[in-house]
């Protein structure tokens, strides 16, 4: 566990950089995490995925896995890998201020 400053706000994150409190997330924080992970600037497509992840997590009580994002967000798998290179499920969750999806465990 450690404290990081994102978008002018101090937040607690776990060893892998995921926010501990998903309620403390703000869009400015997403930009800052994107900066740190080399994704900035976030495009409209990124925001579409982030919005889906936030809404889905609020509804379902857990971060959506990659398969679910590809199926329901309107952004397909190939594009998800372009937008969030390497591990898109993990990266999208982290930028959206959500815990690591369980399918990655």
């Amino acid at each position, binding site marked *: 566990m450690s404290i990081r400053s994102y978008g002018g706000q101090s937040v607690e994150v776990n*060893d892998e950089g995921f926010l501990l409190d998903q309620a403390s997330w703000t869009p400015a924080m997403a930009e800052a995490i994107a900066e740190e992970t080399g994704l900035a600037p976030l495009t409209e497509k990124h925001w579409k995925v982030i919005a889906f992840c936030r809404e889905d997590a609020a509804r379902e009580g857990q971060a959506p896995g990659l*398969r*679910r994002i590809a199926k329901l967000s309107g952004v397909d*798998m*190939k594009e*998800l*890998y372009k937008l969030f*290179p390497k591990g898109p499920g993990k990266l999208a969750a982290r930028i959206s201020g959500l815990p690591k999806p*369980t399918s990655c465990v």
Partner: protein
Amino acid sequence: MKNLSIIGAGAAGTMVANHLRRELSADWILTVIDPAPEHLYQPGLLFLPFGARDEAKIRRRRGRTLGRGVQWIQRPVQLVDPDKRKVMLEGAESVSYDLLVIASGSHVRPEETPGLMGSEWRRSIHDFYTLEGALKLREALTEFRGGRIVLNVAEMPIKCPVAPMEWLFLADAFFRKRGIRDRVELIYVTPLDGAFTKPVCNVRLSHMLKQKGIHLETEFGLAEVDPDGQKLVSYDERHVQYDLLVSIPVHKGAEFIGASGLGNDMNFIPTDKHTLRVKGQDHIFALGDATDLPSSKAGSVAHFQSGVLTRNIMRAIRGQSLLMDFDGHANCFIETGFGKALLIDFNYDVQPLPGKFPVPGFGPFTLLGESRVNHLGKLAFRWLYWNFLMPARQLPISDQMSMAGKQVVTEEEMMKAAV
């Protein structure tokens, strides 16, 4: 009379049935529903490709594994109707329940990946997570004279997440013993960002892969297999060439779970991680590989869960609150080749650490270190499985993980120790 039904009599369902028969009063009818005539000891599949000839010892007629007082209906379940508390079977019959346990496991679905199941399936493309696949791969390895073998995990979660690495360690030993290791390239292609998800154990296993000359390709999201060009293609357009592909295909829960609206996108059942009750369902519990829990899909996990689940079913019957006792405990031997193995013991919160198990300072098993005794433990596990675990006899290991005998180390310390 009241009815308790269990869907699936694999490792988890069998243990729960045999536990519950001793606990439930005589006014409960206990029924298991499973279409398969035999129970397969799946950990035994790992050794078949390398010439083990013990097929007969890893399967048992299901009737032999279920204790007296357990009824068995040999039919597949098609649907669960939680509102009517009914299980629909193939052929329009149904079973009513007061309480239901779902233990229908996790199953490989090669048809989910384009190209995997075409004309090359079981020719240059193999799997070992099914009996048929493991036997076919045994033939393929006997004939293999050299070239590149790629082991690919298509997508997480899979059952027994250490089995792919064990397979590679055993392949390394197999080809060394045959004197052709220098003609065989071994490559591990995984969607994960390392050999294993938990950091300290990852350091240990990555180091071992390197020592054995096994190449690691990480964060590979498999889009398709090109069976004619003999290559794997990822979503970010990386290509990995193979001569022989050993695939761990996409895993999903049973179809009826999706059809009944009880599952997530992969048909795994959203389950309370400590009580094992299905979320939003008062009368349904789930355990084993069928759940969506962030614990490993392993027989040892199903064993620890079966104790917790039995206690919670008895509490639910008596109208008591459920215990939050399941801690994600897993205990897995990892075969490393040449008659040695590692042992890991961990839970939701504590990653695998070095030490001794189960007696602190003594063992006889070594945690996160290779030993011959660990290997003997892995081999003895089959006997233990049929004679102790499945009949649900008491073992001297508690369901919850213990810190006794474990050394708390960091990833960095482990790295230093590895070099």
